[in-house]
């Protein structure tokens, strides 16, 4: 378990970064785990029929992996008390190569009285930010 001294933190400080390789297998696993079986997340023909370029990752999968950077840092998934994102761009998952989503976390705000910090997450796929205002409030 990580022990973080809140007094030692600074706004803007990077807390970690992780690269997530999302493949079609990842999407099928997430569909089963979450119960979201929308075929746009596993069938190219269906995705194209509704006007998409191809199979997309579930926004909730991108959201779910992105917060792992904050979880890894604080060392306890139960300490993320508030987490929200906007889904701004889709993550297109190639059948052969998948997609690489790179997530970086920074300290956005420090509330020493409450013992909480806000982690601002940036998720990038193909040089584009795919989540907007991705913020996790973490209790230390």
């Amino acid at each position, binding site marked *: 378990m990580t022990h973080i001294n809140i007094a030692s933190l600074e706004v803007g400080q990077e807390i970690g970064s992780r690269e997530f390789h999302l493949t079609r297998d990842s999407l099928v696993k997430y569909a089963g785990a979450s119960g979201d079986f929308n075929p746009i997340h596993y069938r190219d023909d269906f995705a194209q029929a509704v006007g998409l370029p191809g199979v997309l990752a579930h*926004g909730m999968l991108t959201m779910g*992996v992105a917060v792992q950077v904050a979880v890894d840092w604080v060392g306890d*998934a139960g300490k993320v008390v508030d987490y929200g994102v906007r889904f701004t761009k889709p993550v297109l998952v190639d059948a052969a190569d998948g997609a690489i989503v790179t997530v970086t976390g920074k300290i956005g705000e420090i509330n020493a009285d409450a013992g909480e910090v806000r982690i601002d997450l940036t998720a990038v796929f193909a040089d584009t930010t795919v989540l907007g205002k991705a913020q996790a409030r973490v209790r230390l």
Partner: protein
Amino acid sequence: MVNPNVEGKKYPATEPYLVGREKIREFARAVMSTNPVNTDVFAAQAAGYTDVVAPPTFAVVIQERSLAGVLADPEADIDFSRVVHGDQRFVHNRPIVAGDELVSELSVAKVASLGAHSMITFETRILDAKGEHVCTAISTLVVRGD
């Protein structure tokens, strides 16, 4: 277009959902968690929990069950094939752990139009078997117009 009159509408509470240890482990693997409290009972107990802890976005599983009721509601008139997820937030009073029996109460917080598109925001209050608040999931769906 989503019927604006459903703003403020409350939907009946869902049947209790029993959070299973393996379900949490499965979800944790799917979101690529490496955090032991998600999968290892001893690590979770060492951190002060009764059992393995759900990842921060697990409440979507419960929210999904509530949403199914709205999507099936003819009054709301939501064409699911045109739905795009706009935003999502989870505010936890405490983490979800294996063994929890959860019910959810969904209400429509807001219906808005944005050009030809409709935006509908739901608030799902998730309660444990004692009726205590565990988490509120807030979700906005964008329904694409013609």
